[in-house]
């Protein structure tokens, strides 16, 4: 008896290839992706490199997302598989098989799918994660280890997690079998669907939600407001999209159907009623795909933009290799400080190409045309961060020789904002009622280059960053009353020593280590190394970047498989319908045309909606990105276009592939 079940199960797998093969393939992909994510997040080799822990932390969030997606996606597919087999299962039961026997056959089938996919997924995952490990090591300039050390954690985690998933699917499907009666089973496949009903309220709600979400994006003024409202806007758009796809599409189609003159035309008649059922069945899938696709596009382009801007910005900001900050209480003179640093560099064998002191003031201010008003503590994100320095220091650090008159001020905005004409400076304790004295007006001279001024990556939660450069140190000192109250720390501005070195990264890192170990001796408060910080930035953003690309690829795959399955299912049912239409007198060409237009709509709709959503999200995302190191709008747009293009290409390939399968299914029956 046992053998019979086994052969029944095996038989089912090979007979239902058209549904089982994609099912197994999707399971394998999910397991592979999960394996890779797990492997990266637990790999000791990656963990040991600089910045690797950042990547691992991000990846461990990724596995959570991945398991969620895997569960819901595979669950959907398993339902689909069962649905297609109900008739066969019903027949077994008519022929005298008990429900418990059917469940046993089910169990064996599930077990087979599970074993096949876990085995293959793990093997592919191991190979892939090794390749990725080498890639990551390369990004992080670490030594690659070509040995094969197979990690057991990912294998264990996947075996357990996916085992649990398949168990849950099996239990849910078994309950379904136990609850249904035989006749229902036999009917299930050919059962007529309920008529799709219009729902004006939900449709209008969808339009309103979506418009409000869009409005929030377009009207978002400041970066912080954008950040606060972003999640809310995303929710609005998600619910709006769902409502529009489900209720909106059906209401629209029903309205078209009500218009008799329109509806009873050859092309419209078949397409409208075809689309009606197609949308009823697929609306939620399509909405999900649109939302997924939007997320992929927004995330991918943001992450790429961030990576791009941050890495260029980091390099741009760090035009000196070392940067030491000294407190005003440090008694040493600049000469004493530099002597110690030279000695330290020599100790580790690092050459110094140049080394110089530097001073600036730093405050928060409202900057508008004609006025820069500083105030004591920044409580609002609407403030800009402003820096005041002298032209001498600027020239020395940047290697330029710009000259300014006494009534001129050099201005540089990190975000590329343009100030023109004249500007006055003022200090005020209260923003609403300016009270301080107004400085004489200064003529604005735009600077082409950011001043060399580096202390960490420029991740500042402000509304912008400005640099004001005055003729010389005396002039800068005279500006003090317009910048701050007599706060002790700022009395003499802040003092820095900047160092440039031609030595290699190893030596520079050694010097940085020496600086860290002997802080007391050197007397500084903070020390920064360009190489160290860039590594860190690349570690964080590189991890994000990597995860973004990886998850996007996973999303794209899932989207495509999802589409494939929904069309496959549709194909089964449509084949019967089209055979009938053909008998009634529809030409093959007309049928093909109708099929094509319907599939194109079903395919194109999510892509189109995703692109529109992304475009609508652009203003908001752009503002938010500025918070995290700013971004060049043009670069963002370009990357966005690139992402859309890549996505569209993948999607189009999937479309042709699916259409082929669909047409084969539909024309498989005698037409």
């Amino acid at each position: 008896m046992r053998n019979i079940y086994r052969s029944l199960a095996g038989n089912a797998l090979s007979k239902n290839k058209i549904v089982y093969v994609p099912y197994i393939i999707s399971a394998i992909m999910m397991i592979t992706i999960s394996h890779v994510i797990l492997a990266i997040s637990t790999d000791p080799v990656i963990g040991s490199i600089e910045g690797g822990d950042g990547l691992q932390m991000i990846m461990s969030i990724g596995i959570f997302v991945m398991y969620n997606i895997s569960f819901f996606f595979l669950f959907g597919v398993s339902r689909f598989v069962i649905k297609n087999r109900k008739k066969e299962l019903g027949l077994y039961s008519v022929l005298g098989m008990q429900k418990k026997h059917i469940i046993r056959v089910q169990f064996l089938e599930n077990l087979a799918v599970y074993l096949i996919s876990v085995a293959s997924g793990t093997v592919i995952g191991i190979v892939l994660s090794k390749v990725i490990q080498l890639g990551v090591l390369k990004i992080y300039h670490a030594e690659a280890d070509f040995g094969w050390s197979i990690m057991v954690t990912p294998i264990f985690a996947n075996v357990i997690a996916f085992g649990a998933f398949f168990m849950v699917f099996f239990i849910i499907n078994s309950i379904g079998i136990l609850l249904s009666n035989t006749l229902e089973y036999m009917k299930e496949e050919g059962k007529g669907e309920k008529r799709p009903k219009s729902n004006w309220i939900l449709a209008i709600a969808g339009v309103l939600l979506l418009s409000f979400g869009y409005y929030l994006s377009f009207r978002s003024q400041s970066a912080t407001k954008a950040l606060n409202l972003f999640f809310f806007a995303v929710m609005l758009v998600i619910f709006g999209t769902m409502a529009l796809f489900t209720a909106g599409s059906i209401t629209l189609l029903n309205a078209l159907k009500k218009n008799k003159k329109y509806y009873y035309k050859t092309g419209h008649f078949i397409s409208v009623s075809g689309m009606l059922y197609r949308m009823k069945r697929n609306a939620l899938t399509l909405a999900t795909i649109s939302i997924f696709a939007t997320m992929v596009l927004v995330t991918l382009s943001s992450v790429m933009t961030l990576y791009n801007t941050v890495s260029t910005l980091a390099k741009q900001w760090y035009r000196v290799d070392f940067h030491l900050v000294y407190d005003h209480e440090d008694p040493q003179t600049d000469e004493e400080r530099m002597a110690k640093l030279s000695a330290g560099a020599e100790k580790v064998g690092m050459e110094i190409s140049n080394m110089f002191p530097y001073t600036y003031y730093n405050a928060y201010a409202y900057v508008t045309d004609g006025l820069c008003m500083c105030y004591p503590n920044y409580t609002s994100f609407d403030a800009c961060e402003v820096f005041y320095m002298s032209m001498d220091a600027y020239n020395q650090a940047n290697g330029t020789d710009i000259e300014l008159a006494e009534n001129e001020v050099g201005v540089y905005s990190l975000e590329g904002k343009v100030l023109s004409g004249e500007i006055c400076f003022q200090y005020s304790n209260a923003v609403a009622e300016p009270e301080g004295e107004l400085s004489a007006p200064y003529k604005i001279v735009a600077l082409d280059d950011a001043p060399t001024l580096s202390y960490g990556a420029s991740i500042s939660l402000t509304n912008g960053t400005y640099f004001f450069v005055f003729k010389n140190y005396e002039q800068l000192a005279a500006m003090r009353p317009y910048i701050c109250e007599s706060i002790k720390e700022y009395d003499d501005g802040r003092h820095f020593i900047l160092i440039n070195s031609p030595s290699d990264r190893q030596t520079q890192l050694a010097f940085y280590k020496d600086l860290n170990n002997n802080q007391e001796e050197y007397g500084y408060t903070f020390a920064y190394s360009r190489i160290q910080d860039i590594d860190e930035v690349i570690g964080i953003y590189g991890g994000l970047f990597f995860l973004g690309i990886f998850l996007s690829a996973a999303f794209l795959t899932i989207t495509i498989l999802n589409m494939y399955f929904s069309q496959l299912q549709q194909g089964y049912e449509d084949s019967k319908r089209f055979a009938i239409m053909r008998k009634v007198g529809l030409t093959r060409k007309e049928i093909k045309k109708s099929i094509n237009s319907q599939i194109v709509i079903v395919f194109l709709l999510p892509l189109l909606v995703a692109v529109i959503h992304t475009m609508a999200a652009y203003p908001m995302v752009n503002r938010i990105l500025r918070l995290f190191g700013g971004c060049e709008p043009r670069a963002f747009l370009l990357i966005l276009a690139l992402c859309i293009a890549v996505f569209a290409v993948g999607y189009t390939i999937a479309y042709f592939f699916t259409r082929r399968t669909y047409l084969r299914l539909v024309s498989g029956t005698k037409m």
Partner: protein
Amino acid sequence: MSMLEVKNLKKIYTTRFGGNKVVALQNVNLTVEKGEYVAIMGESGSGKTTLLNILATLDKPTEGEVVLDGRKMNAIKDKELAKFRRERLGFVFQEFNLLDNFSVRDNIYLPLVLTGVPHQQMQERLKPIAEKLGISELLEKFPYEISGGQKQRVAVARAIITNPEMVLADEPTGALDSRSTDELLEQFANINKDGQTILMVTHSVKAASTAGRVLFIKDGIVYHQIYRGNETNSEFYRRISDSLTALMGDGFNSVKD
């Protein structure tokens, strides 16, 4: 000129894996004049549906030719065939073939929509037919919401709404009770009176007795036919019964209601 001419028609089904060949029709010759009402009888599996499918251009014969209204069917392209089918033929299928995503009304309208008839005209045509067939109440329902007999009447309505020159009906009374059968047969008689040609496959002697001629098929051959001449329905009924018993043997279980 005759409406339909069938010469040396042969149909051999080959099962998918090559092996078994089923000879469904062998050497069928048949002529049907315009305005004739022909019933086709024969035991199950004798090839009636196969013949009708070939006449309706839904299937291609293995050998032989079909001339419909003076045109050789095997020389016509798919596109023209479809057009020909929807404009000039009405087909009532044995298994109804209604579309489950269209309402009853839209199912009946389907061939009209395909030919591009204005909506106003569709309504005008449907009204009397629906009344005659007793399906006026069902028009807004969907096929899965109505009974087998009702489906059959809907299928008939769909076949005759285009006023086809020839109606091909495969057991159109198979799922009907005797009252509905009578109404349907009356409907067929009426449209036949208006000059439409009817070919009807049936197992019911009663249904056959309303026709002008009865063909008997056995093992893929038309091997007997009787004409009504001037007989009444009941006289013709008796003659068909006798022929059936004589020709098919007692084993043939026709419906002699």
